[in-house]
């Protein structure tokens, strides 16, 4: 079967890539575009390691076919911040020493960034709910909470 052309926007740049009809968005990003920040953990939408923003909303990129992203806007961890211009969440994660093995961290950061965009000053309960779809098997949730709480204060302050 013939490959199809996927035209979409990735990390603020227009992109065109050839994909198989059965490729997931995660596979297209990782295998065909070299964006290996999003990870495949479970492949069934349970772990959140593959979280990317799809039209600004967090999704499990392992559950979307690549061609379903045609015409849409995708942001991966590679487009969240850059060295020297980190997102406040990335900065807080580094200072709090959140990552242990690090595998879940791109997904957690994307989920947390989406949460703060929708709700700049979330309660602890809302933060827990916002990252409920992200599993960390190093069980580093305590530091995640601290870092997200601190970054929320910073981003909310910056906006007001």
């Amino acid at each position, binding site marked *: *079967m013939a490959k199809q052309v996927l035209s979409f926007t990735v990390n603020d740049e227009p992109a065109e890539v050839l994909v198989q009809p059965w490729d997931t968005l995660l596979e297209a990003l990782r295998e065909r575009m070299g964006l290996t920040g999003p990870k495949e953990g479970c492949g069934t939408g349970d772990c959140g390691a593959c979280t990317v923003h799809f039209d600004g909303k967090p*999704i499990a990129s392992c559950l979307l076919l690549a061609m379903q992203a*045609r015409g849409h806007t995708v942001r991966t961890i590679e487009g969240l911040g850059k060295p020297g211009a980190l997102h406040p969440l990335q900065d807080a994660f580094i200072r709090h020493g959140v990552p242990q093995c690090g595998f879940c961290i791109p997904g957690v950061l994307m*989920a947390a960034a989406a949460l703060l965009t929708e709700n700049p000053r979330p309660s602890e309960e809302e933060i827990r709910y916002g990252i409920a*779809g992200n599993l960390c098997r190093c069980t580093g949730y305590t530091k995640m909470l601290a870092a997200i709480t601190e970054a929320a204060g910073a981003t909310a302050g910056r906006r007001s």
Partner: protein
Amino acid sequence: MRRFELVLPGSVDDCVKALAQAGPESKLLAGGTDLLPQLKNGLLKPARVIDLSGVPRLRAIEPGNGQGLRVGSAVTARTLELDRAVRAKYLSLAESGALVGSVQVRNLATLGGNLCNAAPSADMAPPLLALDAEAVVTGPKGERRVPIAAFFTGVRKTVLAPDELLVELVLPNPGARSGGSYLRHTPRRELDIAVVGVASQLTLANGVCTKARIALAAVAPIPLRATAAEQALEGQAVTPDRIKRAADLAVEAARPISDQRGSADFRRHLVRVLTRRTLTTALARASA
């Protein structure tokens, strides 16, 4: 993943044509949160997958007749959770949307997917039963309407013919003095499947209940209405004693099985507790 041909229709008519050409070897893809795992593990091996994400009508939420609402079958759980028009009059449906999966799953999972998978535990089914919703189904012979109570025919079975498509759900206006609630029990708070789910909807006039609806999930092969419990409330003032009586009657409507999620006895207990709680909340919301 196993290979398949992917069809990308842009309209409901194109979907119907694609279904007619594809035959039984095809699968409709909406949010993919149930379909993709089954394609990956080989449980399903369709030759053709028809993607519904490019059909605007299926993603629309629009006013319906008589101040009701029409909700497209590809509207996501997250949209149900947050949409103002849904929350204003159909709060139990919004609550069911908020309970599905994680936010990453809710941004993909759709109302139509939840219904067409027809799991006995489907969270969005009880609110729709309690709201007297109708399903709009289309196929080569045109559109037809199916009351949601007649939509499910068995475990993972619906009235949809292989060449038919669920287009939207029509929600009648419940009226100003109406309130609803959906609750479920799960061992974990997130990313779990209902052991039992209960939706209640109460409509009041002059202190009397003019309409009561109680719908149960995961206690029978299909989502059920507890009609004897509803009748025990209608035409009377809703008091704590009558709510308790209705909860007892709802237990009699349940036909639960024992499985790894819970025993039949535990499920009956949950029906009693969740019916009481959802009726109490529905009453407060109807009275507000």
